[in-house]
């Protein structure tokens, strides 16, 4: 297998995730797109770990998974709060901080 195959797979997933973050309005969908981005990063970390013959990438990937779990927990709590206060999860309605 070529190293580049895994890196380009990671790039494809990353770009799809970036498109999702930009295009989606529903906050839950934006969180899902962020999960796509974090997974592409993990694929890159593990590919480079295999290439360099070290296990550092595995440790980093595990830390990324843990931080992603924490992020989803807090993110969904914020989405719930938003839904409770406004009956909507549209990110474009959160415009109070606009100058």
């Amino acid at each position, binding site marked *: 297998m070529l190293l580049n195959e895994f890196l380009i797979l990671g790039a494809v997933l990353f770009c799809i995730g970036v498109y999702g973050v930009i295009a989606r309005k529903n906050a839950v969908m934006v969180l899902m797109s962020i999960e796509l981005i974090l997974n592409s990063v993990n694929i890159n970390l*593990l590919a480079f770990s295999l290439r360099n013959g070290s296990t550092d990438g*595995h440790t980093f990937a595990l830390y990324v998974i843990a931080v992603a779990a924490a992020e989803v927990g807090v993110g969904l709590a914020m989405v719930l709060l938003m839904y409770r206060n406004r009956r909507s999860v549209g990110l474009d309605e959160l415009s109070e901080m606009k100058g």
Partner: protein
Amino acid sequence: MLAADMLIAQNVGFYIIAAIMVVGALRVVTTRNVVHAALWLVVVLAGAAAQYVLLAAEFVAITQVMVYIGAVMVLFLFGTMLTRAQIGAEDNLNNKNWFIGIPVAVLMFATMVIALNDGFGNEKLPMDAPVVTTQQVSDQIFGPYLLPFWALSFVLLAAVIGAIVLARRD
């Protein structure tokens, strides 16, 4: 790429799983149904776990299945259930100017592909590398990376407390 490389079973497996993952990821960002998006995300995450196995990372693959497919997806489905009025297709999921995302993603992808081809052109991964055992990973985590591990436990604690404080009704 060499023709001989294409015959290796790992390569065939990689391309099949990669195609499934890309289709699933595209469905995640294009479908009109939030529940369907969550289920397509399961496909992508399971494909990522399979790729980790191909990359000789069995512990990370199992962690991916347990944490992402087991826990995070349940959180997403709960979030979907608690924040949506109707189950079914919605027209209101995309921004007004969602199409700006397409050139951004395409340009970013083109840049990355050029850079990656430039940097790693035909570099091969070692085919006979030994599988990284769980013991090696734990030696790393509880050895040189112990301090980040502690920091991570505080991150999780803060996330738990923050989620309770945010979502509590009072």
